[in-house]
Structures are given as C-alpha cells and as structure tokens.
C-alpha cells in the first residue's frame, strides 16, 4: 500500500508534509493534525472534533492561524534528495512536489558560504605570520586569495535548469563537498 502524505503550507510559506500514524478512516487524525500545526499562541486548548472542524480550522481559530489542507500525494511523489528540502513547493499542474529554483539557489549559496567562511578563517594565521615576518609578497598573495574567496557569492554563477544541475555546481576554489 502506498503511504499517503498530506501537504499544507508552513508559516514561512514552505511545504509541510504530514504522515498519519495508522488508520484514519474517518479523517479525524488528519483534522487533529491540522488543528495542532495551526497553533500560534494557543498551547492549552485540546482538540475537540465537535468544534474544531476542518472548516473552522481553515477559517481560523483564536490562537491559531487559518490553515487548510493544500493537497494529498503519495510518499513516492516527494523528491528523494532532501538537499533542497526548504525549497519544496506545491504548484498545481506540475509534478506533485516541485523545487522552487530561486529558493534552491539561496540554499546552495548558503552551503557554499559555509564552506567559504571556513576557508577564509584558515587564511588568517598565515596572513598574521606574513605580517610579523614583514613578508609583503606573502601578504599580497594571501590577501588576493582572501579576496577571491570573498567574491565567490558575487562571481559564482548558479544558473541552472534543474535541482540536480544546481547541486552539481561548486566553486573550484573551495574544497570538494563531503555531503
């Protein structure tokens, strides 16, 4: 049996994916889940199926944000690679779960920056040693290396058509990724 997944929008506009535990023939577990994930300031109100219907949750309950089910899909409809997880989006008419390429580029650049920052820090000690030794040649060389690293976010081209292509792009100035 295929595993059903229920899609809703998170507070930041991202896609939340719900898995129901066990059977839910009457849909009450899903309704309770919608009630729970719509909480904002309310932490003490217990779910009451007679009051907290899907229509009421979609309209907005006090202490909760208005939330409705966006779509249903199968587990197999989700991308298997979660590298761009926070760029997943639901677009009617496209495949069940799409990757927003603009968000994906931001995610990938953040990953590049993380590695770039480590490399920048690694140059600090050699630069200080060059300063102490009054080695102006080494100072200039290291300063140039640092500038190249600093410029990566502005100079590295992330233009790509697919998530797989984007993930494959990596600056040659940085060490290869381990994950």
């Amino acid at each position, binding site marked *: 049996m295929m*595993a059903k997944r229920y899609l*809703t929008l*998170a507070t*930041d506009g*991202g896609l*939340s*994916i*719900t*898995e*129901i*535990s066990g059977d839910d023939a009457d849909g009450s*577990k*899903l309704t*309770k*889940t919608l*009630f*729970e*994930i719509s*909480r904002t300031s*309310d*932490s*003490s*109100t*217990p*779910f009451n199926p007679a009051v907290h219907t899907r229509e009421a949750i979609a309209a907005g309950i006090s202490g909760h944000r208005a939330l409705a089910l966006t779509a249903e899909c199968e*587990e197999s409809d989700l991308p298997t690679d*979660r590298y761009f*997880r*926070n760029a997943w989006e639901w677009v009617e008419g496209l495949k069940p779960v799409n990757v927003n390429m603009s968000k994906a580029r931001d995610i990938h650049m953040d990953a590049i920056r993380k590695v770039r920052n480590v490399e920048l820090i690694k140059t600090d000690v050699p630069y200080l040693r060059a300063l102490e030794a009054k080695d102006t040649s080494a100072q200039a060389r290291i300063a140039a290396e640092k500038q190249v690293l600093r410029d990566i976010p502005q100079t590295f081209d992330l233009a790509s058509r697919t998530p797989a292509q984007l993930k494959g792009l990596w600056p040659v100035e940085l060490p290869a990724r381990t994950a």
Partner: protein
Amino acid sequence: MTINVTPIPRLTVLAAPAFVLGDSNVAGSALTAVASDSTLGLAATKAEMEAVSSAAKSATPARTQYHPGVAKGWGHIASDGALGSPSYGIGSVTYVSTGVRTIAWATNFSAATYSTVVGMEGNDTVSGDFSNFAVGSVTLTTYQDGAADDRAGSIAAFGAQ
C-alpha cells in the same frame, strides 16, 4: 447394605455484593477475608493510576497507560521525517522544514507542561530539542553542527493525559 448420606449445604442468594475480598484480612480469618468492604481485586481508576497511592488496586492493561511512570507516546522518526513502526501514542508526524517535525499526540496531555526525551542517532555533533509544547503536540528540531538538519532519533513523552 449401608448407605452413607452426606448433606449438601443449600446455596442461598446473598444480598449484593455477594462478597468482596478483603485487603485488611486478619491472618487466618476467612471471615474477614470475605466480609470486608474493601476493593481488593478491582481495577484502579484513571485517577488512582495517576495518584500512584493504592497498594490494593490492580493495574489493568487499559489503565496502565495512565501511570505517571509510563510513556504516553514513543517512536522512532527517521531522517526523512517518517514515523517508524511500531510506535505508541503518536497520531501524526509533520515534516515542517529541514530538521523540524511537529508531533501530534494521539491523546491530549492534561496540560502543556510535560516531559519529553530524545535520543539522536549519530555522533556528538548531532542533537535534538523540543519546543512549542502544547497539550496535543510538540515540535522536535534536530541539528548537525548547530544547524537544523534532518537527523534520525527516538522520542518519548511522559505526563498526565
């Protein structure tokens, strides 16, 4: 020929309750064992399970779950957010974003103050913590090197429901 006749005591209908077992039985006294109005042998109620005070009541399978020392929910959540089988007391798991999952309990807690534990898989760079405690749900965030990351772990929750 000799016929031996043994009288059989006549059974009588007793006023309800027919008898109850006594928990204050005087040693060797069958009379007090059956005449007491104690409730020895009866199942503890939900309140009695939560009070953890009775030494006479029995904990039945259906009410053991109300004891404070018993986990009200437990399960394993994989790195992709999938709830493993078996699990207990968990109604759903919502994969909100990288490293963030909302766990909806099958039964609401009595208050939003209850205890949760998480055991993460991996090395000492992996961690997990809980936030957004509500009577019916809690948020689990897992981390790698301090940044939210999809990691697998097992959870449990304790408290009154």
